[in-house]
């Protein structure tokens, strides 16, 4: 009679791995298919955005902010703009704020489409990804008309937005929403409640509300734990109080509250809410200027501030120290992915190796946001 011996082995997942969507490395200690622990090793994409900010000045830093989160560039723009405006006490004109909200919410839909689409790919289904990308391309067409870029969108400026909406754009955007809402329903009925999805995602990587706050999870990852917290509603900024929308939270319909399935569903439902905000914003947009008067030689007075905005990946905090010159003394970006990576080591214990892939996908981490 022979005894069955198992031996612990160390596996390297990444830095380049098809399911990590960026350069990330995991050092996995595994016993067969079961992980003892997965230790994230980040920093392969580090390009010292914070140091660049100290060298290029306030206006000059705006295009660099896109690279902090290339899938959600509008939000990084907005965060930097709001931080600079708060330091200098500049008020953005109403139409400018509306343009910002419209651009940002389109960006949120595009970002969530990438997230739910690639999740399908990580589970082994290619088609959902192509569907999501097709929809995202149409949003990219709209955003391209706004700012000329299809990935690193750069539409916002300190004091508002660069240009007004082009003629006829509003109608095109509304027509797109008419097309998008039924597509989202279709996407849901085809993919979201698929048996394989539920089996792979439900009860995997459960985060309790206390853990989520302790590890500082933000955005959809926090809401999936059942905490109804959205900066757009709770610490409202810009013109968000003027819109009527819901904050979807995880409810554990298919498993436990706070599992991967909840995180996935929260994103699906958020796209629907964003579409609601967009309709209202496009219909109510007031006339007027879009850019406040901001001196070219922008020198905010001495001081410091932190601005928090609800990006596609959650609470993005810009901490800026000004020393009174045209160059910020220190800029620090607090991002959602950084905290989400911090919790993986804890969540990974006892999961299967295949679950690690869905766990990363459900936390929706973006490599440059971790490294900056």
């Amino acid at each position, binding site marked *: 009679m022979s005894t069955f011996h198992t031996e612990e082995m160390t596996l390297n997942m990444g830095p380049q791995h098809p399911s990590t969507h960026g350069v990330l490395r995991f050092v996995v200690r595994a016993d067969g298919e079961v992980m003892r622990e997965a230790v994230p090793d980040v920093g392969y994409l580090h390009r010292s955005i914070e140091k660049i900010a100290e060298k290029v000045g306030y206006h000059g830093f705006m295009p660099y902010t896109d690279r902090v989160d290339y899938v959600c560039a509008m939000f990084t723009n907005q965060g930097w703009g709001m931080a600079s405006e708060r330091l200098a006490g500049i008020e953005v004109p109403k139409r400018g704020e509306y343009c910002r909200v419209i651009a940002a919410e389109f960006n949120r839909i595009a970002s969530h489409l990438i997230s739910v689409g690639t999740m399908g790919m990580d589970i082994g289904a290619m088609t959902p990804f192509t569907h999501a990308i097709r929809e995202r391309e149409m949003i990219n067409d709209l955003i391209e008309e706004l700012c000329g870029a299809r990935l690193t969108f750069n539409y916002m400026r300190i004091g508002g937005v660069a240009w007004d909406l082009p003629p006829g754009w509003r109608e095109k955007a509304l027509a797109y929403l008419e097309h998008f809402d039924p597509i989202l329903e279709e996407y849901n009925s085809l993919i979201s409640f698929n048996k394989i999805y539920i089996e792979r995602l439900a009860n995997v990587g459960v985060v309790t509300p206390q853990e989520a*706050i*302790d590890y500082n999870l933000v955005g959809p990852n926090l809401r999936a734990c059942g905490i109804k917290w959205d900066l757009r509603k*709770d610490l409202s900024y810009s013109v968000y109080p003027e819109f009527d929308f819901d904050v979807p939270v995880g409810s554990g319909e298919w498993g436990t509250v706070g599992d991967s399935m909840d995180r996935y569903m929260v994103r699906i439902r958020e796209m629907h809410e964003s579409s609601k905000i967009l309709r209202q914003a496009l219909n109510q947009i007031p006339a007027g200027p879009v850019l406040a008067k901001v001196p070219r030689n922008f020198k905010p*007075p001495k001081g410091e*501030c932190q601005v928090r905005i609800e990006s596609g990946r959650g609470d993005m905090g810009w901490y800026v120290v000004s020393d009174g010159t045209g160059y910020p003394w220190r800029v620090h970006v607090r991002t959602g992915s950084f905290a989400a990576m911090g919790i993986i080591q804890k969540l990974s214990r006892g999961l299967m190796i295949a679950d690690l892939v869905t766990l990363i996908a459900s936390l929706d981490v973006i490599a440059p946001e971790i490294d900056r």
Partner: protein
Amino acid sequence: MEPLAIYQRVKERFGDRVLEISESKPDPFCVIDPAAIVEVAIALRDDPETAMDCLSNESGVDYKDRIEVVYHFFSYQLRHGAVLKVQLPREDPVVHTLEGVWKSANWMEREIFDLLGVSFEGHSDLRRILMPEDWPGHPLRKDFVEPLEYHGISTVRESPIIRLDPKRK
């Protein structure tokens, strides 16, 4: 609670271990004796009037004559926040970790250690996070000079802008 009211409350409790309450615009902050930071953090977390359940941000700033570690606390229950700072000497900056109070401090402190060289006493896993392990110096220090090469790989390169017309200088 307004930030200044929170700082007054900390001041009442900790007396002269609160070194400075600054009304800096737009965000006021409060400077704490580095030796007391863990105690103050636990007090802010457990006091039902402040109930700071989250360490939302921790970053370091090099001011040339000192290094500051800046903590942004936030309370989800009461929807208010506070900014606390500790000032450390530039040569050997050491402060106790807040990892035991909030788990999120773990990674953020590793980042400050990596980029500014602040060492956190009692941290469970203090090693570089973004830069390679053998990288010389701490990049976010104001006097940091980038080495010309790293393991034989040059860190300088020619301007990527291609000159289309060779006759034009």
